[in-house]
């Protein structure tokens, strides 16, 4: 009997360790990023690093200012949200409330296909369709620009926004809508003035999820944004995002330059943690 009890305890211990692996991974990632990101920030100076307007890592007198990357990431994400959220939101309302079950299931599987397409495929199509398109339509010398990145990001965040909004809208109690209809509101008025406000936390969470996706996307953006460390002064400027700043120089970097790349990753990580915390806040409110 004792042997059995011992074995049960050992097995319990093994499962406990397996359960704690995710926690360990998060800690490991955080610690590694902080440890490898801090030295360069110390050497360059926090203010010079975050607010320096020039990035010239390979110059004889290197400059490590990442303000262009931060602003590009913020503008790019904001642009993607401005385009992606209205389209995604409207699609979600239609699918959740008005579409017949057949239409709903067809479009929903199309949306999950959109979510499953690898980001390099988006990048490839963007490179060959979007970039030349922008060059022709707006008559600019190079179409690889902030605008191209914004459009690609807007498409890439669509599935997350649609799926999450549908979940929130589906969860609105039928009684709310029935009451509104009984008071004489038309179905469409009911959807937008009753159902949507009732699902607003979930929809807000969908938007934040979209923000997280857009900030973190690297490969597709790398292929269409032109990748020059300019300040994002116009939509047609060739720009570099936080994510692409890390990946574009990593292969050949060394010394302080390499450390600075890790610091950029740390800044990116901070942004992601911030959106993650916001997301959790909205999800918690949604559950209540």
């Amino acid at each position, binding site marked *: 009997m004792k042997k059995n009890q011992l074995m*049960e305890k050992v*097995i*319990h211990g093994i*499962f*406990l360790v*397996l*359960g704690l*692996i*995710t926690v360990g*991974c*998060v800690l490991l*990632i955080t610690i*590694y*990023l902080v440890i490898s990101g801090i030295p360069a920030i110390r050497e360059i100076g926090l203010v010079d690093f975050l607010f320096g307007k020039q990035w010239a890592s390979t110059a004889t007198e290197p400059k490590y200012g990442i303000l262009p990357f931060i602003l590009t990431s913020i503008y790019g994400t904001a642009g993607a949200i401005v385009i992606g959220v*209205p*389209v*995604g*939101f*409207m*699609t979600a309302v*239609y699918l959740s409330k*008005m579409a017949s079950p057949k239409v709903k299931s067809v*479009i929903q*599987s*199309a*949306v*999950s*296909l*959109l979510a*499953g*397409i*690898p980001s*390099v*495929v988006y*990048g*490839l*199509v963007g*490179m*060959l369709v979007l970039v030349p398109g922008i060059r022709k339509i707006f008559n600019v010398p190079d179409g690889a620009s902030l605008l191209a990145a914004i459009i690609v990001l807007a*498409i890439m965040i*669509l599935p997350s926004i649609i799926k999450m909004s549908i979940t929130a809208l589906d969860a609105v109690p039928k009684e709310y809508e029935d009451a509104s209809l009984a008071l004489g509101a*038309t179905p*469409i*008025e009911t959807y937008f003035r009753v159902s949507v406000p009732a699902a607003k936390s979930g929809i807000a969470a969908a938007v934040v999820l979209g923000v*997280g996706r857009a*900030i*973190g996307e*690297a*490969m597709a953006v*790398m*292929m269409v944004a032109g990748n020059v460390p300019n300040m994002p002064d116009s939509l047609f400027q060739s720009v570099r995002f936080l*994510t692409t700043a890390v*990946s574009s120089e990593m292969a050949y970097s060394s010394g302080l330059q390499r450390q600075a790349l890790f610091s950029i*990753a740390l800044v*990116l*990580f901070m942004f*992601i943690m911030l*959106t*993650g915390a916001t997301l*959790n806040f909205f999800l918690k409110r949604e559950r209540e």
Partner: protein
Amino acid sequence: MLNRSLSKKRRGYEVLMKALMLLSVGLTAALVLFLLVYVLIEGIPNITWELISTKPSYLTGHIGILPDILNTVCIVIATLLIVLPLGVGAAIYLTEYASNKKVVGIIEYAAETLSGIPSIIYGLVGMLLFSNNMGTSLMAGACTLVIMNLPTIMRTTQESLKTVPQSYREGAFGLGAGKWRVVRTVVLPGCVDGVITGCILSVGRILGESAALLFTAGFAHTMLTFPTGMKSPGATLTVALYVYAKEQGEFGVAFAIAAILMVLTVIINFAATAVQKHFEKRKNI
């Protein structure tokens, strides 16, 4: 359809909202259709038997993607082999063993955090953690992907474990079985559907991953030799697509790979839905 007795303002609102909704749905559907058709039309003519059955040669300038296909298969298998026990174990701990609510909360929060971290950060940490120790290699790439896919396997397994009726467990306990025996004989068979769904989703994610592999598995096109090949660097299909399109300007090859990836994505999507439907039906019986 429209109610004629509505005031002009309300009728205008109705028409506007309906138009906007239909426009959005149409746009979304058109986008998916365009991407699918465009990639297939550009890609399929470029897929030749020679392309997918040979390796590239710098001497003759010949391009073949067989090494990339094999690398992808190897990385998928290696990742799943490692992540499955870890993820399933974690899920079993959460649903069967954990009694402290706080611990459960922390673990679930950690899993959510992991699934929100962008792949480029995984790539960087994977480079520091694995590639610096075992060299840029397929194995280092697989280890990085293990961390990425852990939350997926954990979540799908957990969801399927929740559907195993409590009475089954009680019945087994009542017959005198110990905890481990209950887990092994009653709980584990019940989570097969979750594990299969998790595997399909993970395979999809691994196939599409590129940023996390660029610095951990590298971009060599050398032919793989199993199993020692796990120690050498190699590009997966997505990484190869990136290299051919961005650095070498070989758009024909890039589109061929894109078309292959697209077809695989469609298959995986259908498989995931079919599996879910199949198991739901069985549960209702």
